[in-house]
C-alpha cells in the first residue's frame, strides 16, 4: 500500500492519551496513511524540524502545554504544517481560539471516522493557511445571505461558546426559540457540527476575531 513512502502524507498525532493515539494510528493506517505519534506538545515541538508535509492532529487539552500553545509555537518557528485540533464535546471556546491561532479545522471527540479523514484530506490538499479567510466562495455568500438578523445574533453567541440557556437569557428569548434558531442556522450554513459552524462562520467573516473570546 505504501509504495512511495517519501511522498506518503504523514499524520502527526499529538495526544497525551495513549489509547486515543493508538486508535487514531490504526484508523489512519486502515486508509494507508503513515502516523507519527507524540505523547505531548513539547515532544512534537522538539521534533518540529522533522515535521514533513502532511498534517498535524493535536488534542487541545494537555498538561503543561496545550494544543493552541503548540500551534502558536510551531508558527513562530516558521512551521506552517496544517493543523487540525481535536477536543472533547463542548469545548467551543477553546476551538475558536485554536482556529484563531491558526488551526485549519476542529473535530470533536468522539470522531466520526469519515469526518476526520475528510478533514485531514482537505487540509493536506488545501494551499497554505495564509489566505483561507478571504476564500469566500459564492456558495458561502449564498449561505450567509439566508441568515436573518436574529439568527445572526444567535450564531455569534454560539460561536462565542455560549450554551442555549445563556443565549436565551442574553437575547431575552425562550430556550426553545433559541434551539429553533440554532437548528435553522446549522441548516442554512450547512454545518454538520458546532465545530464546523465555527469554522464556517470564521471563514465567512461573520464573526471577527475580536469578537471571539
Amino acid at each position, binding site marked *: 500500500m505504501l509504495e512511495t513512502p517519501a511522498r506518503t502524507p504523514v499524520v502527526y498525532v499529538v495526544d497525551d*492519551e495513549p*489509547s*486515543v493515539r*493508538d*486508535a*487514531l494510528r*490504526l*484508523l489512519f*493506517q*486502515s*486508509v494507508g496513511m503513515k502516523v507519527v505519534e507524540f505523547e505531548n506538545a513539547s515532544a512534537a515541538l522538539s521534533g518540529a524540524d522533522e515535521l514533513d508535509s502532511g498534517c498535524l492532529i493535536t488534542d487541545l*487539552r494537555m*498538561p*503543561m502545554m*496545550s494544543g493552541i500553545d503548540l500551534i502558536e509555537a510551531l508558527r513562530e518557528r516558521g512551521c506552517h504544517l496544517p493543523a487540525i485540533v481535536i477536543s*472533547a*464535546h*463542548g469545548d467551543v471556546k477553546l476551538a475558536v481560539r485554536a482556529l484563531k491561532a491558526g488551526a485549519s479545522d476542529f473535530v470533536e*471527540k*468522539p*470522531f466520526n*471516522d469519515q469526518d476526520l479523514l475528510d478533514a485531514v484530506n482537505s487540509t493536506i490538499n488545501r494551499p497554505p493557511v495564509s489566505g483561507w479567510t478571504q476564500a469566500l466562495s459564492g456558495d458561502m455568500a449564498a449561505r450567509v445571505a439566508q441568515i436573518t438578523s436574529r439568527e445572526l445574533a444567535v450564531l455569534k453567541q454560539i460561536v462565542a461558546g455560549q450554551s442555549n440557556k445563556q443565549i436565551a437569557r442574553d437575547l431575552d428569548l425562550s430556550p426553545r426559540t433559541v434551539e429553533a434558531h440554532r437548528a435553522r442556522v446549522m441548516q442554512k450554513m450547512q454545518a454538520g457540527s458546532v465545530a464546523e459552524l465555527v469554522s464556517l462562520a470564521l471563514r465567512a467573516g461573520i464573526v471577527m476575531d475580536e469578537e471571539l473570546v
Partner: protein
Amino acid sequence: MSEQSVQLGAGYYNPSISLALPTRLLVHLLTAAAYYGAGMLAFAVFPIGNGVAGIWPAAGLSVATMLLFGPSVSLAIFFSDFLVGLNTGLPTGHALLLATGAVGEALVAWYLLTRIARFDPRLRRIKDVTAFVIAGVLPATMLCMIPRMLLTAVMDGAGPTPAPNAQTVLVGLLGHGLGVLLVAPVILSWTAERPLLKPSAEFYLLLLAAVLLNAAAFTATPSGPASALLYAVFVVVLWAALRFGPRETSDVMLLTAIFATWAAWRASGPFIISNQIEALYSLSLFLMVATVTALLLAAAARERSASAQRVEESELAHRMLIEQMREGVITLDGMRRLAFVSDRFCALSGWQRQDLIGRPFTQLVATADRLRLEQALSDTERGQDVQIEVALERAGEGTMLASVAPRRLAGSEGQPARIMAVVADITESRRAAELSRLRLQQIAHTNRVQSMDEMAIAFAHEISQPLTAITSYAQAARRFLSAGSGAIGPAREAIDGAEREARRGSEIVRRIRGFVQDRKSERVPQVADLLVSEVAQLAEPEVRQHGVELRTDLCANGCKVLVDPVQIQQVLLNLVRNAAEAIGEAGSATRLITLKSVSAPPDGVAFAVIDSGPGFAPAELAKIFDPFYTSKPDGIGIGLALCRSIIEDHDGQLHGAAEPGRGATFTFTLKEFRDA
C-alpha cells in the same frame, strides 16, 4: 491599755486569756498569794534545810501561770518566793538568790515550751507530754537547784533546819520537779480545755473512787496487806486516762499526791521506810513515774480516739463522694464477687443491693462479654490499669453499655487481690456518638455528591477519552475488515484496543459510583498506597483541567490502615481539588500537586497533599478549618471542616501548614493496622 491578750509563742495553743488591767493585777496578786501559801505550806510540812523543802508545788504554780499569762508574772513569783525565804529564816541575800532562781526556773520552762517545743498545754498528744517533761520540767528544776546547791555548800548547817547533804539536794530537786509535774498540768488543762460545766456522774464516781482508794492505800500500815491497795490507785488512773483525758488524769494524780504527802507527813502509808528523807525520796520517785506514765497514757488514748475519729470522718467523706459520683462504684473480693456496691451502681443497674452483694461480678455481664471482663480483671490483678466496655444486664429490662475501670486495691501479701471498679453508663453517650457519626456520614455524602457535581465536566472529559478511542478503534476495525482478508491482524488489534478501553471506561464509572454512593460507613483494612493512587485517578481529570500536574509518592510499603476508604479518599480528594483550584487561580509558574503516603514509625501511616500554589498567611491558617470559612467566591466552606471531622473520627488529626508564595501542605497520620 485596758485590755491585752496574752502573747504566747507561735504555734502555741492559745487559751485566749485576754484580761483587763484590774483583772490582770488581781491575777498577779492571786498568783503571789497562792505561791506564798504553797511555799509556806511546803516548808511547814517538809522543811529540809537551807531553803529547801521536801516537795515544792509552788514550782508548778509558777510554771503554769507563766505559760498562761506570760513573763509578767515574774514579779509576783519573785516577791512571793523572797517572802517565803525571809519568813523561813533565810538571810535577805539568800532569799533574793533563791527568788531569782525560782523566777529563772519558770522563765526557762516558759521559753523552752512556747518558743522551742511549740507545746500545746492541753497535753493531748504524746509529743506534748514528752515536751512538757523534757523541756518544761527537767531543765527548769535543774536550774533552780543551782542556787540551792551553792547555798548548801556555803551555809554549812547554819539556820533552823538540819544540816544538808547531797541526798537533801536530790530530794529537793525531785520535789521541785514533782511540783511542776503535778500542779502545772492541772492548772493548764483546766484553763485550756473547754470548761466542764456539767460534769457527768462518772466524773464524780471517778473522784470518789480516787479519794476512797487513796485514803485506804495511804492509811494502811506499810507492811500490811492493805498497802497493796496502792496498786489499785492505778486502776483509777487508767480509768481517768482512757475514759476521760489529760485533765481528769492530772486531777487524779494530784489527788494521789496530796494523799501520799499527807500520809508521809503523818509518817504513815507505804512510803514510810526509815527516815523522812528516804520517805520523801521514794514518794517523789513513785509519784513522778506514775504521773509521767499517766499523762502519757492519757495522751495516747486521746491520740488514738482522735485518729479513729479522723478515719471515721475520712470514710464518711469518701462515702459521700462515692454516692455523689455519676458513676457507680463497686468492690470485688478475692473471688471477684461483689463486696460493696454504691447506691448509684444499684440505681444504674436497677438491682437491689441484697441481690448484688456476694454475686460474681461477671454474672452481671452479657455472656458475650464475660471472657473479656475476666481477662480485664486478671490484668487488673497483675497491676495493670485497664478500662473495658461491656454490656451489663439490668434488672428485668435489657442491658446497658457500661464502661468499667477496675483498679487493684492494695491487699495483704499472698491474698487474692481485691478490686475496686468505677462503672459508668455510656449507653447515652455512645448513642450520641453514633448519631454524630451518622450525621458526619450524611454531610460527607452531601459533600461527595457536590464534589461530583463540580467535577462532572472533568469526568465527562475523562469518560470521553475511552469512548473516543473505542469509536476510532471500531471504525478502524471496520475499515480493515472491509479492505480485505489481509488486514485481519490490525483489525484484531483495533478490536482488542476497543475492548480494553471499554473496560477502562466502566472502571471509571465504577469508581465514580463507588465514591458518590450513600452507604453505611464501614472500617476496613486498606492498603494506604492503593487508597492514594485511587484518589489520584479520581482527581486527575479535574486537576488536569486546571493545567496542574498531579504526582503520587507512594512510600507506605504496603502498610494498611483501618478506615472508611471512601471517607479518607474524600478527604484527600477535597485537599487535592482545593490545591488545584488555588494553583489555577493564582496562576503559579510551578503547577504541581504531590499526593504522598508514607509509613510513620513506630505505628503510623502519614498522608500528605503538597502543592506549589500560593499558600496562605498564618492568620488564615487559623481559620481555614472553621465551618463556613471560605476563600472561594462560590464555596460554602464546609470542605476542610468536614475533612477535619472525618480525620478526627478516624482518631487522627489534620494539620495544615503554608507559607505565602511557597505552597501549602496538608497532612494527617492514621494508626497503622496490623493483622492479628
